[in-house]
């Protein structure tokens, strides 16, 4: 019961903090003091109090885009185990639902973008659709590896197995997987070097340009949904990288929070030291990640 409450508490409240940590890291790298760590919370609170401007071209689909996307990420957050603790809901094959929930969110976001009839948003939508289907195989290769190593068909079973021992046994495979998944983590969450969440140069962006016409509470849903997606996928990734456990429940929760913050700092560091790739390079990197993860699968099938 305590675990459930902590799970819900973290899922609902922690995501914007990750964005705050990333931007603070970037600010420190740039020699600025940066915005307060809690700035994303203030932004969300402000957006949810505001009115909206809706394009005359749009229909109900435009408004349902952010709502459905946020709902899918919320459902997905109930399937992901946090740290060493099993998820509130888990069943055989929940990882398939997990992946397809994100696909549903993408479907809703892209249609909302196309509903505006804007060429900029069409461009972003096309890029999102293209790159995300190249990222999809990597996630499933990773799921194969985890399923085979754990003998389990649910995310909770895969990620709460004693991964420390697995590292000792199949370290090479997991190492390849970590590389591939980090690329996917950055790409799926629209971070540099794939996408820049801060520029407002529409021609170069992917995700930001899709939501150009969203405003007020709907934009709040978009931002919160994006933060939650980063949180959920980070929880998936960090569990493979830092599979430590102490034996004490509360200490394990603390460990999880700290490791997630470390990941946010790492993402901020990557964003600070790298430039955004040219768009034509992005498919190559995503296919590269797919090949890395296919090698990880081959290694454990022997």
């Amino acid at each position, binding site marked *: 019961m305590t675990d459930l409450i902590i799970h819900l508490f973290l899922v609902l409240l922690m995501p914007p903090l990750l964005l705050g940590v990333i931007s603070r890291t970037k600010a420190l790298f740039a020699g600025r003091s940066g915005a307060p760590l809690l700035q994303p919370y203030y932004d969300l609170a402000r957006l949810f*109090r505001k*009115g*909206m*401007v*809706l*394009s*005359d*071209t*749009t*229909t109900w*689909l435009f*408004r349902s885009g952010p*709502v*459905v996307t*946020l*709902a899918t990420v919320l*459902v997905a957050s*109930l399937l992901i185990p946090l740290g060493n603790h099993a998820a509130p*809901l888990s*069943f*055989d*094959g929940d990882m*398939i*639902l997990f992946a*397809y*929930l994100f*696909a*549903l969110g993408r*479907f809703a976001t*892209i*249609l909302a973008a*196309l*509903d505006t*009839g*804007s*060429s900029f*948003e069409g461009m972003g*939508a*096309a*890029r999102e*659709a*293209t790159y*995300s*289907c190249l990222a*999809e*195989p*990597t996630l*499933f290769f990773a799921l*194969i590896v985890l399923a*085979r190593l754990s*003998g*389990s*068909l649910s995310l909770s079973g895969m990620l709460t197995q004693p991964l420390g021992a697995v590292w000792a046994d199949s370290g090479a495979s997991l190492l390849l997987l970590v590389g591939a998944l980090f690329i996917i983590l950055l790409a799926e969450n629209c971070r540099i070097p794939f996408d820049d969440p801060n520029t407002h140069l*529409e021609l170069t962006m992917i995700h930001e340009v899709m939501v*150009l016409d969203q405003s*007020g*509470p709907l934009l709040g*849903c978009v931002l919160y949904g994006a933060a939650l997606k980063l949180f959920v996928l980070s929880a998936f990734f960090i569990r493979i990288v830092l599979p430590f456990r102490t034996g004490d429940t509360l200490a394990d929760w603390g460990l999880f929070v700290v490791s997630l913050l470390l990941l946010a700092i790492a993402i901020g560091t990557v964003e600070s030291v790298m430039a955004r790739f040219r768009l034509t390079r992005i*498919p190559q990197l995503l296919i590269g990640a797919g090949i890395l993860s296919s090698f990880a699968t081959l290694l454990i*099938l022997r």
Partner: protein
Amino acid sequence: MFLAGEGLSPSAALVAAGILLTACSGLPGLVLARRDGTGQKIATLLMVAGSGLGLAGALNALLTGASARYVITGGFLVVGGEWGVDPLSAFFLIPLFLLAGCGALYGSGYFPEAKHPSAAPRLTFFFGLLAASVALVFTARDALLFLLAWEVMALASFFALTTEDHRKEVREAGLLFLVAAHMGTLVLFAHFSLLKAATSSFTFPGAGSLSGGTAPAAAIFLTALVGFGFKAGIMPLHIWLPSAHAAAPSHVSALMSGVIIKSGIYGIVRVTSFYHTPPAWWGMTLLTLGIISAVAGVLFAIGQHDLKRLLAYHSIENIGIIAMGIGVALIGRSSGSLPLELLGMGGALLHLLNHALFKGLLFLGAGSVIHAVGTREIDLMGGVAKRLPLTGLFFLTGAAAICGLPPLNGFVSEYLIYLGLFRGVAGIGTVVTSGLPLMALAIPALALVGGLALACFVKAYGVVFLGVHRQESVTQPHEAGLSMLLPMGILALLCVLIGLFPQGGIRLLEPAVAGWFPVSAGMATGVTLPAPVGWITVMGLLLIFFTLAIIPVALKKRPGGIAGAVTWDCGFLRPTPRMQYTASSFAATLVDLFGGMLRPRRHRPKISGPYPEPALFSSHVPEVVLELLYLPLLKRGNELLMPLRRLQHGQIPLYILYIFVTVIVLLLLAP
């Protein structure tokens, strides 16, 4: 017609009545002199009634799990043979009768007799005959009756799809269909001859009664794969499919894509059920062909900008997914793993039903759109959802379902196939002896297919239904009538129901899956799929609950209020419809990325001088397999066989003589 035995069982009687009613539905329209739509009304009524009876019979057979076989004694003008309804047949009859009834109703609004006085009675007649012949294919229990029904199905499809034969492309599509159909039938003649040699009877053997390890079994499997593969549209035997689906009237396309190509799958499922020990390469072959069809099908679909051609390529994709499921089941059977057999076959059969529902829905929706805007070209449409809100909603349901998104039906069947693959690869409760790397490859391939399908359908839906209309059409686009909306509504509702409450679909599925198992395996009492589908209901309802809970938060009245404005134009010009992203530009990156396979053709105008002339740029993705593989081969064959053309002189009496001589020679050769 005389049926031996002690009378028909209730389900067999209902199915037989359904077949007779649908077969005769178009007859009154052919003989009625007045073309005021009476014939079509009678036909629609007969079709709906016949479909209802057939559906009731099929459901009854599935719920009771009973199977029955009857011998039709031959006589004057009646071909003898064995006929029967078992759960496997009954499961295939469900999509057939659903789409036949819905299609007939739709057709009365889409292709009314009042508007097409000469073509409509013909179409109505062949539509009914087509539905009846497919039902006969699914229920025939011996080779002769099966081939007879198969041939009627091919001819009825040909006449139904060439309804608008004043257009050249329709005639060409019809010819291509007829050639491909007969190539398949030719291979099936060989197939059934081999089967007769193996069992010394034309009657279909019982499930699991043959051994799969022998050389004749391999030949039987391969001829079935090619013969039925032509009909199913498995790559690279799919060449007839895109143009035929595009050329046919929309409700015929729906029936073709939803059911007729499934008759090929039915053949493969039925033939593989005969064998209790298939060798491992059977399953691996089907899994490989499935992966190729699924990935290539969806890639070609992305390159299309004709709405119905796009949907047709998605049929190839979904046939691929179904073939993957059957492949998993066969691998399971040859490694003795029950969960793989159940999940693979269950997923394949459920996907077959689901595909009939959502693809039927999508073709009917596409028909409404084409009916309203007067073109099939996606790049000329736009903003259609504002004019046709209900059609837009139904098409959206179908689009989300075909991408396998929860909480719709496409997700459930893909989930079953994924679960089978994951169980095999992870070695959970099952040991796969061969084909492990292939199964490991199938999982990301299926994920890639899902992603690409999503890209394709957001493109199609976004460009057709959203944004602003790109071209002023001659007539004001209008919402379809009730007779067209009702069938779409039924299909959309079923997509949602199976997606949210898959238990119902699975309940119908399990007897059919059990029918695929050898009788000796003790599956007659029924099987239970090892999948926690109850969770799908929970998660689907949870998703809906969250969505409904967020709506008031996101859209509640606030002091700022809601203001209207033009779409954000980055401070430049007011956006015009011509500035919208087109389907071609949406797909450009993916088409380029897979350009080696798709071979896109681009016609670039030369632009020169300081004041260039107005120029047109166009690009399209051709049917590569047909143009680069079949046509050169056929051309070469034609040159080689030119001397034989002298036999083909167009004198019918001499043709009859050929047949007579052939029969005499065969009789002399027969032992």
